[in-house]
């Protein structure tokens, strides 16, 4: 390469570099007014915590140029808040916290809304699911437990909350089937107040096992009162290094209890790109990592494209499990 062509090449490159921010400036979308993150539930729950953690991180790390408001819109198992979002068609400043309930409420016939009613934006964090028994129970692993269940389903009562058809319930149904039992024969005891009722009921010996997210059981496990039979994560979890995954126990079942964000329907590619870029940066910040550690959540990031594909796949899986037991039509 001679000198001239090299100089020329350099010039072309320089022009390209100089031009690209300009081009991007013309095309990029930025929020034009305060950003609203809807927690479709009251204060204190998982959606609310997620919305407030995002608000805190984006604000403190100065990743957005506009103020962020978190608004609680409880009702209809999320439907009230999500319907509000649905009415903001094409407006990229509105986001709502979401979870597998968006899929499940539709499958159970509680709601018309599906992920297709919105623009999927991201999965952000996850918890993992476990099956817990009392520390003095005879079962040491998934196999012995589910075999006992298969032999005498009427003697085993399983605590689940707040309602049937959620992640906790789906985990247990899937495992029962995978270990060769009959999901329809399982006796579920429903606790609307979730862990607050499930854990005392298990410790008091009123039920034999609970299916629940890991974080809810951790303190009891550390105190030596509960034993975990398995966890739905792909690898063993740091806090519970002795508990094998379901995969290690021969069941091909990795099941996140994730939460993420959806946006109003009909967002443009530029608006999606803005949130992809902003949230990808957010999940790498120390503020976010520290918050996740405190809340005992795990990073589970999917951008808008990956998340849409994931939602489709999860809908498929849950639909067939819930149809098995007659909960979904």
């Amino acid at each position: 390469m001679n000198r001239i062509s090299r100089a020329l090449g350099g010039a072309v490159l320089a022009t390209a570099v100089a031009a690209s921010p300009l081009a991007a400036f013309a095309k990029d979308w930025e929020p034009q007014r305060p950003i609203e993150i809807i927690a479709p539930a009251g204060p204190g729950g998982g959606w609310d915590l997620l919305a407030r953690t995002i608000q805190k991180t984006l604000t403190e790390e100065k990743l957005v140029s506009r103020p962020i408001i978190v608004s609680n819109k409880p009702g209809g198992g999320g439907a009230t808040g999500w319907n509000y979002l649905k009415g903001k068609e094409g407006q990229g400043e509105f986001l709502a916290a979401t979870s597998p309930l968006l899929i499940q409420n539709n499958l159970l016939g509680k709601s018309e809304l599906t992920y297709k009613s919105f623009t999927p934006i991201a999965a952000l964090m996850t918890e993992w699911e476990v099956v817990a028994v009392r520390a003095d129970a005879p079962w040491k692993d998934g196999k012995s437990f589910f075999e006992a269940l298969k032999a005498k389903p009427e003697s085993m009562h399983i605590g689940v909350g707040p309602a049937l058809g959620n992640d906790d319930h789906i985990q247990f149904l899937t495992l029962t089937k995978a270990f060769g039992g009959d999901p329809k024969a399982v006796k579920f005891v429903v606790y609307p107040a979730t862990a607050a009722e499930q854990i005392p009921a298990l410790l008091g010996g009123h039920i034999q096992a609970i299916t629940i997210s890991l974080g809810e059981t951790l303190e009891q496990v550390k105190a030596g009162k509960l034993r975990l039979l398995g966890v739905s994560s792909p690898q063993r979890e740091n806090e519970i290094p002795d508990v094998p995954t379901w995969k290690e126990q021969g069941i091909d079942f990795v099941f996140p209890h994730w939460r993420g964000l959806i946006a109003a329907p009909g967002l443009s590619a530029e608006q999606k790109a803005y949130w992809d870029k902003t949230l990808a940066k957010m999940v790498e910040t120390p503020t976010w990592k520290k918050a996740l550690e405190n809340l005992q959540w795990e990073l589970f990031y999917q951008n808008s494209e990956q998340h849409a594909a994931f939602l489709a796949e999860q809908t498929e899986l849950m639909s067939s499990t819930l149809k098995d037991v007659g909960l979904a039509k």
Partner: protein
Amino acid sequence: MDAILHNLGLGFEVALQPVNLMWLVIGGLLGTIIGMLPGLGPATGVAVLIPLTYGMNPATALITMASVYYGAMFGGSRASIMINTPGDASAIVSCFDGYPMAKQGRAGSALATSAIASFVGGIVGMVFLIFFTAPVAEMALKFGPAEKFSLMLFALTATITLSEGSVVKGFLAMGFGFMLATIGIDGQSGAIRFTMGIEALQDGIDFLVIMIGFYAIAEVFKNFSSLDLRYDVDAKSIGRVWMTGEDFKRSWKPILRGGPLGFFIGVLPGAGGTIATFLSYAIEKSFSRKPEEFGKGAVEGLAGPESANNACSCGALVPLLTLGIPGSGTAAVMLGALMMLGVRPGPILFEQHPEIAWGVIASMLAGNIVLLLINLPLAVPLVQLLKTPQRIMLPMIVGLAYMGTYFLNYANFDFVLVSVSALGGYMLSRLSIPIPPLVLALILGGMTEQAFRNSLTIANGSPMIFVTQPISLAFLVLAAISLIYALKRHRKLTQV
């Protein structure tokens, strides 16, 4: 014993640090103000103030939240007494006699009684919390769905005995409450029941909305005929905020009974302040030598439940501190905030962070004293409100009631519900159908149904579980006794 006192000493060291003491006072004051606003209960109060705690150390944060919680409990009964509008479920009972007392010009006495009863109840609850947490937490585990069902049945039948006049009307009201409670999505089967296609009804009816309609707005309707009257009050006595000798003589026993009752009910998973206050009211009425005064301004009917309510909130901390699971909505909000700070309450909190666990306990003891000191002087300007003419007071109550309704769920449909229930409440009182059994059935209906189903699931379909479990059987016997008592009293009344 020595260990407990040593730990308590450690706790006071934390609680009495100037910064913690300062937040105790600020939190208590803010909580009292929030609690006074209709519709804003302790849970919302704590949630709204969570951003305050960002950047605090965990002990200070928990102390601040606990003092807001406590302040809101103290403040909650203010609105019940002054304008017949309960701020949360456990303040409903305070309306029954607190509001009539205020109308008779005894608002100062009612406010003082409620503050002092809350104080004593809180202290009794704290003492129980300090010394009996471990054994009581163990005992509460024995409490399964069958026991829970029987306890709620007892609370319901006891409330029937509260009804003036006809027992049949009491049952009618209870049945109506149960019917309202079935509206919404059923957790067990996922079936949508009686929503008539209205999405806003899917989560069921918020009893607080019904409450505000039944009590606050219906009361405005009732007073409409006397628009130009002022309350029949003695201008001199109105400013006095203290219990009279007579009040004191009648209330000290109810206050002392309310404390332990409230604490034990608070410990039970998912029972809570509603059952504690209603049961305390029923018990005081049956012990009283003047049961006919209940509902017309009997001071015992205010003192017992107020004490039970505050003791109950201490009891609700037992599952939070020992199991890391919240015993009430407020405790759930506190748990979330603590987790954001990196502290997870649970069985090992007392070992890992004794300064937090005991600091909070000590600060609640101190907080009770602070709140009493805040609340007594605060009552002085409040009672002056009663001098306001009805023409001004009634529209204000309606405004506050609708505002409170919106604060509950931010749901527009609740405006319809509150208006309908206001008319319904007015009609019920014209027909002299008692409202308490309806309200309690509405609150407990869903839980009672689920406890019944869970009992049967666990017993594989056999209803014998309710009588073979001793605790459950005991509650059923109590329920039967209270029913017989009600029928007997009714017969006596009708024979005269």
